[in-house]
């Protein structure tokens, strides 16, 4: 294997390949940083260009775009409280408070270090443990998915702030809103208008909930005293801080690797699970949500930790885990390669080239992130009374471009107003978002499992994997309730 990897290294290490990957990473970072533009959009747009390229450089371009956009989402999440991608929503919770404290550079650096670490570990996992992880992923059925989602939902407790009850109310609102649109049997729910039959897309809900309430707060309360321009001298992450965050980073990377390898889970769920875990095990858990670097490390390492491992089911089994890997499957097939077990028989050299190229792209991600940081850091110097309307314009154009439909723009603005009311009633927004993203998967797998068992709920605890996730979820809930009761009695 080592010999094959060295041969592949030689084949990949060309200026042309480096330029292609650098362009992909750079483009991905910029696209990810623009609210409303996602990695899926970047990969889909680049697909036609790959028709004229060699097979491996074309796949590397798509992978680079995916990685770049996953990191890029954190830039706008930190600087303007508008997550560029859904997986960066968790980064907003601590990134934006840090930016408000004049430490945006520190937050961006931590996001970059964590993204690169997660990415590297994910790539190494892809190379060395693809086969066992793919086998594990195959054993995950609807009951296991359901319990995994329940476990991921326990993150709600961690991001609920001081009130678990309000966090749960927020989660219920998210679960309810996620049911709008077509259900798994083809009937429509809550279709008050024809447009609502297509449901509510994640991007307008996510961006509306985080970005628009900030604008409304500025307009209505005219409170801009909290804004502090970023100090350039406060940019660096110190060694002590890095050491403190290392545990969260490594744990987050592993969570990202495992959840990325399971088809359909995706980086958002991984980021929230990692964040919840980091908060539970941190000595600074009280500081989470107020500007804690460990929170950024956990979230970013997990979402980039998915980037390499989402390729595991694709390469090993030929099963695309999400839309992006679905597009990549198309790219493989265009170039005459069929992902699955036979890929390792017929195209082993190409597979190793891909592995090596992905490792290179981790290094390029670091370089691109550092290079663009100084440019992005100027954003935090813009006064909020100017920045908020600019963000609104970016959101409105970005969201319209996703579907070429005013409906999504209406959802964006409506969710902004809804988010503002949530703020007025002190209902935290983060649990809403987690529930909105995980809700459809939770419901679908619950209903599938019950349909499989002919309505017998014991199927939900019928295998060791379901027991594992159920025990973890119960443990987390019990610990959280104990903490809340302690707080109340104090």
């Amino acid at each position, binding site marked *: 294997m080592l010999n094959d990897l060295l041969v592949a290294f030689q084949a990949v290490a060309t200026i042309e390949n480096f330029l292609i990957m650098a362009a992909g990473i750079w483009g991905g970072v910029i696209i990810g940083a623009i609210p409303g533009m996602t990695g899926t959009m970047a990969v889909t747009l680049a697909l036609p260009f790959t028709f004229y390229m060699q097979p491996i450089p074309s796949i590397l371009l798509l992978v680079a775009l995916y990685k770049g956009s996953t990191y890029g989402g954190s830039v706008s999440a930190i600087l303007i409280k508008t997550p560029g991608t859904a997986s960066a929503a968790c980064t907003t919770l601590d990134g934006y408070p840090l930016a408000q404290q004049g430490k945006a550079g520190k937050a961006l650096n931590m996001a970059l270090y964590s993204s690169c670490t997660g990415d590297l570990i994910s790539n190494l996992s892809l190379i060395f443990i693809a086969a066992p992880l793919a086998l594990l992923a195959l054993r995950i059925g609807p009951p296991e998915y359901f319990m995994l989602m329940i476990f991921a939902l326990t993150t709600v407790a961690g991001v609920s702030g001081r009130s678990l009850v*309000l966090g749960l109310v927020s989660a219920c609102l998210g679960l309810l809103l996620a049911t709008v649109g077509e259900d798994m049997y083809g009937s429509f729910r809550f279709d008050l208008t024809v447009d609502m039959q297509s449901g509510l897309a994640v991007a307008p809900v996510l961006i509306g909930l985080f970005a628009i309430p900030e604008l409304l*707060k500025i307009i209505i309360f005219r409170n801009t005293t909290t804004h502090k321009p970023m100090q350039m001298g406060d940019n660096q992450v110190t060694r002590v801080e890095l050491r403190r965050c290392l545990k969260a980073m490594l744990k987050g990377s592993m969570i990202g690797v495992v959840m990325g390898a399971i088809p359909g889970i995706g980086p958002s769920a991984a980021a929230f699970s990692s964040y919840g875990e980091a908060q539970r095990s941190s000595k600074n858990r009280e500081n989470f949500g107020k500007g804690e670097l460990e929170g950024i490390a956990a979230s970013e390492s997990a979402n980039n930790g998915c980037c390499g491992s989402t390729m595991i089911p694709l390469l090993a089994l030929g099963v695309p885990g999400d839309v992006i890997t679905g597009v990549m499957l198309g790219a493989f097939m265009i170039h005459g390669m069929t992902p699955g077990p036979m890929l390792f028989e017929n195209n082993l050299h190409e597979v190793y080239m891909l592995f090596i190229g992905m490792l290179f792209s981790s290094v390029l991600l670091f370089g691109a992130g550092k290079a663009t940081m100084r440019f992005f850091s100027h954003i935090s110097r813009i006064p909020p009374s100017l920045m908020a309307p600019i963000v609104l314009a970016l959101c409105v154009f970005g969201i319209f471009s996703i579907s070429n439909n005013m409906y999504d723009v209406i959802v964006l603005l409506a969710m902004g107003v809804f988010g503002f009311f949530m703020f*007025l009633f002190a209902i935290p927004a983060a649990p809403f978002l987690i529930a909105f993203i995980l809700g459809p998967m939770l419901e679908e797998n619950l209903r599938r499992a019950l349909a499989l068992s002919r*309505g017998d709920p014991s199927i939900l605890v019928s295998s060791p994997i379901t027991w594992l996730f159920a025990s973890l979820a119960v443990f987390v809930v019990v610990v959280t309730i104990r903490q809340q009761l302690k*707080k109340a009695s104090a």
Partner: protein
Amino acid sequence: MGMTRGLIITALFGIVLFLLIPAYVPRPRFIPGFAPPPDMWPRTVSMIGIALGLLLAGLSFLPKAEAIADPEDASAIRGNTPVTTLLIRFGWTILAFVIFIGSVKLLGFLLSSILLLAVMLILTGYWRQKIVALLVAVVLPLALYLFFSSALNTRFPIGSLFKAIGI
């Protein structure tokens, strides 16, 4: 605050459970008996929501539980501004959003966005820097319009007014 909020949350989930679900979540005939129907999940969530709303209202009577039911609220950043002023500002913002959505068909996406951005800059108070604000209100939507329509082939609505005059 705690009592009112609890009751509002209960009412919200109650409306969903008793009015919206019966009217807007139909049960298809072809689902076999053992498979959960489409209204199972929204009903369950709504019932939990009602219980949580009542719990919140109940907790407002217990001073010890106030910490877990009532964290800091918006009053911290409200300051001394009268409620009427806040409501007027909120009303203007909502009106601007509604007019923007309504005007896209008539004026097109670009012009409506320019107007929306200008109104937002006035409402945030940045309009005192007139030249910068005017430049931002015009140049930013124009740049975004050109970027999205050329790079992504986004087809923004042109507006019936411009269509009528042949632009």
